[in-house]
Each structure stands twice: as C-alpha cells, then as structure tokens.
C-alpha cells in the first residue's frame, strides 16, 4: 500500500508557499525531485521531534531537518542531483555551507534582532499564525535565540553596532558571490534545478518578498537582478498556484475600494435625504413643544393694538393721580 509523504510546515504569505526557509527548502527540493508530497500548514512546532518545523512524515517515520529528509528521499530514489558530476556535487555542498555561515546569521538578525522588523513584521505574523497559547511563547523564544547567536558569533552584546555592520557586510559579500556564480544561467548547474537551487531559493525568497521595514539587506538583494529573476522564475514554474492565489487575493482586496467610489452618486443622495429628514423632524418637534413660535400679521396687529390700549390706560391713571 502506498503511504503518502506528508510535510507539516509554517504557513505562507506574500506569494510564497511558506515563509520559513527550512520548510521552503524541503518543498522546493520535493518539487525539483518530483516527490508526491502533501503539505499541511500546522503553524505549530510544539509536537515535533526536534521542536521545529518542517516535519516530514512517511508512514510511521518522522524526520526533522533538511539533510536528513533529503537523505531519506535519495534512499527512495528521489533526487534533484542525478545530472551532477562529483565536482559539481562538491561545489553544491560548499555553497550551501557558504549560505549557512554568511547569510543565515544575517537573516536571523533581520527577522528577529532588528527592533523595527521584529515589532512590525515578525512578531505580529507569528503571533497571528500560532495557535493559543503558543503565540505568547514562540516569538519571544526565537528573538532570544537569535540574540544569543549574535553574541556567540561576535562576542559582544547583540545591540553593539559591530554586530549589525558585521552581519550585513558578510551577507552582502555572500549575495554578491552567489550572483557572480549564477551569472546569466537559469539555475546554478545548467538548465535543471538541483539541491543547491532549492537551498538558495529558500534563503532568498522570504528575504525578497517579506515587507521589511528596515530593508537594507533586501535592497542589496534587489540590486542583484539575476538573483531576483532566479527567485521569480522558480516561484512561477514550481509554485504557480500559490503565486496566482496571492495575486488574485491582492486584486480582490483592491476591488472593494473601487466599488465604493462607484456608489458615489447614490451615497450623496442618501446622505442629503437623511439630513433633510433629520432637519424636518427636529424642526417639527421644536414647534410642537413651543421652543419656536411663529405669529401671523393679524396677530401681530392685534397685539400692537392691545399694547397701545394698555399704554393709554396706564397714562390716564398716572395723570389722574397727578391731579
């Protein structure tokens, strides 16, 4: 009986099937190797073997970690590196270590240590996605872990400017090296994607697409136009449905704004009628309770004659008393 291969992942956003680089790495590798993988967005790393996502399940087997998952898939004859020479495989291993040594600390910094990005992007996104009560624990834990990594690598406090400068400088050198290596090719080793392409895509796609407030590193990546084209190419070819759903969702969110402008004439008319009814009602109430009184011309004349008579009688009375 064929048991399905499943992957529990973090959810996606901004046109990506997952915002987490480790999940994206496995998903891209599965696409390139034509693995029939079913993905489930769990957004919960709690009940996992290593306490992190993604978790690969096949029957009773549960595996964490990209290299272990890739090794298991290779045992089952799914590989993205069939066409590579041993030298190219060696180069692929070397470049993936370049990414983990130079770019990974910068991504940790940009997502979790940079204050603006943490408060406006990372923490709200994860807090919204995680179920209760994990949304109160995991964002803070990821922030603390990232700060510890900075302190371990640079041996100064995480908020020292040396950390930010060092981390960005290393990452920019790494991105430049990747851009030079890729050149004008479609993928790193010819016209078919390999494991290295999956790894590079996983590192670059969230960095490119997420709406960072402090976007220095993102801007450097955008300046490497061949890397941007690389990410877009893989998204369009292998994750087309996710991209299309995101585009459709974006368009449908813009439509209600346009429709509200089309209601313009009716809206004004309704506002005018409502104001008129309110004014008439209040005026009628004011008249009925006697707040406002309106007198006619005859009434005014009669009142004037009455006033004159009262004045005359008062004058006569006072002149009689005077005599």
């Amino acid at each position, binding site marked *: 009986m064929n048991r399905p291969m499943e992957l529990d992942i973090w959810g996606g956003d901004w046109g990506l099937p997952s915002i987490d680089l480790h999940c994206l790495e496995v998903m891209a590798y599965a696409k390139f190797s034509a693995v029939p993988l079913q993905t489930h967005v769990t957004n919960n790393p709690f009940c996992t073997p290593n306490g992190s996502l993604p978790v690969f399940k096949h029957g009773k087997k549960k595996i964490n970690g990209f290299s272990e998952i890739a090794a298991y898939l290779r045992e089952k004859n799914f590989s993205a590196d069939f066409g590579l020479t041993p030298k190219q*495989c*060696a180069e692929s*291993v070397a470049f993936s270590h370049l990414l983990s040594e130079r770019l990974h600390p910068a991504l940790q910094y940009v997502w979790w240590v940079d204050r603006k990005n943490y408060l406006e992007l990372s923490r709200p996104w994860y807090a919204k996605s995680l179920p209760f009560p994990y949304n109160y624990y995991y964002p803070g834990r990821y922030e603390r872990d990232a700060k510890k990594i900075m302190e371990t690598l640079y041996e100064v406090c995480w908020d020292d400017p040396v950390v930010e400068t060092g981390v960005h400088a290393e990452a920019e050198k790494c991105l430049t090296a990747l851009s030079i*290596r890729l050149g004008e090719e479609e993928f790193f080793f010819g016209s078919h994607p390999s494991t290295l392409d999956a790894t590079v895509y996983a590192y670059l796609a969230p960095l490119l697409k997420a709406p960072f407030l402090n976007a220095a590193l993102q801007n450097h990546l955008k300046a490497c136009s061949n890397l941007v084209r690389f990410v877009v190419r893989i998204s369009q070819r292998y994750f087309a449905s996710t991209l299309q759903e995101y585009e459709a969702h974006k368009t449908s969110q813009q439509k209600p704004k346009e429709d509200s402008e089309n209601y313009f004439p009716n809206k004004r008319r309704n506002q005018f009628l409502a104001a008129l009814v309110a004014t008439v009602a209040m005026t009628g109430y004011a008249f009925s309770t006697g707040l406002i009184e309106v007198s006619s011309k005859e009434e005014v004349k009669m009142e004037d004659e009455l006033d004159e008579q009262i004045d005359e009688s008062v004058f006569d009375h006072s002149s009689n008393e005077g005599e």
Partner: protein
Amino acid sequence: MPSVLLTESISVELGSREPWPGDVKFFQPYLMEQILLPDNANCLAVQAFLKMCELHFTIENRWNAEYMSPSGRVPFIKCGDFLVAELDSIVAFVGAKGISLTAELTGTQKAEMRAFISLINCVLGNAEIYVTWKDDTVFNEVTKPRYGSVFPFPLNRILCWQKQKKNLKRLSMLGWGGKSLEEVYNDIESCCSALSERLGRSLFFFGEHPTELDALIFGHIFTIFTTPLPNTVFARIVRKYSNLIELCKAIERMYFERREPELVP
C-alpha cells in the same frame, strides 16, 4: 541602515597606505606545551598564507596571545601600528596593500573559493572544536592539561572551565551541540570527500599557484594528521584522501623548510 564603522575596514583602509614593514610579528601560543588543535590549525594556515605571499614575519610565542589578540582568537599579527587577527582579516589587510594570491582568478572562481573556505570553517573548524572541548577523553587527557599549563592553580581549572563553557555554547548555537561523535565523523568524511573531489589530480585548487584556500586546507589537514590524540579516528579519516595529503606535503616542502616539532600531549 548599518553604520560604516567596521574595525576591519578602518585598519584595512589605513594600513593600505603603508608598505609591508620588515618587523612584522606573528603571535601564537606556545607550541610544545599550550596550543590546541583548532588554534594550531588556524596558526599554520596564516603562516602558510604569509609565506605564499613571500611576506617576512617573525614568530613570537606568548602564553597570553589569546588575550592580546584584538578579536580574542589566535593567531594575530602586529604590522606597524595595527593588530590584525584571523585569516580572513589578514587576507583583507594584505590585499589592501596590493598583495594577493587570487589576482588572476575570475569572479566565479573567487566565489567558489569563498564557498570552499566556508565549508572548511563550518565543518573542519567546528569538528576540531568539538573533538577538543566536547569529547570527554580528549578534553581530560589533552585539552585540560595543555590549556591550563600556563596558569597557576586554581586559575588553570577556572579558566579552562570558562573556555569549555564558551565553546560548548558556540557549538550549540551553530547546531553542533546535539551531534554525536559518529555524526561529527560523518560530517568530516563528507567535507574531506568534497574537497578531494574538487582538488582531483591538480596540485592546487586553482591553477599552478596556491591561494588562501590551499593555505587553509594545509593548516587544518596537516594539523589533524600530525597531532597525536587519544582518539585517532579523526586522523584516519583524513589520511584516506591521498590528494589532500599530497597538497599538504607539497606546501610543507615549498614553504616550511624546517618544521617545528610535533605536538606532544
């Protein structure tokens, strides 16, 4: 936006205005009694690089070299008024003076070289720290006596414990804390296999002349197969790759006329 105040860039910037002085000093811990596997590998790598660039320097052994170093790690060089530590910074500093081993490499080759340097730092570098500080046998029989040999009691115990804690934390942060010794050996095997595959039958990695990548490989591989440890698996794995051993022997012949005596625990 990140500020531009990087210590490395300042020293590179200012250092580039002066030629290489004749009185450059190279600081490292004592070889016979004190130095440990990871530090010895880094020291040898920098020495090989400087010799490849034909830059003159004198070696100064100091028990407190680690504390004198601006980055807290050995080796470091004193070049005029500047102290520059570790291979990457020294390569940049020397490069700013117009001296480079990679001037004839293409952009793609330089990117590839960067990648292999990262591979060695990530795998061999961390494996050496693991074997030195996390493996109980090696730690008790080699590391503790050697590291503490230059300090009086009880400082030798306290400082050694502090350094072990720091290194274990570093390994944990880099994802090596949960690995078993078997997994570490597998990682070393795959790293050496990748390096050997890339080197093939050539003498050096890029063309007829060595680069800083060759210097780094020399530093690590030579140290591993010449350092006697209680656990010999590490050395046996490395010895299997004959082309890497040939590379080390060639660099030793060409640049180290008379080698310092081997480490004796």
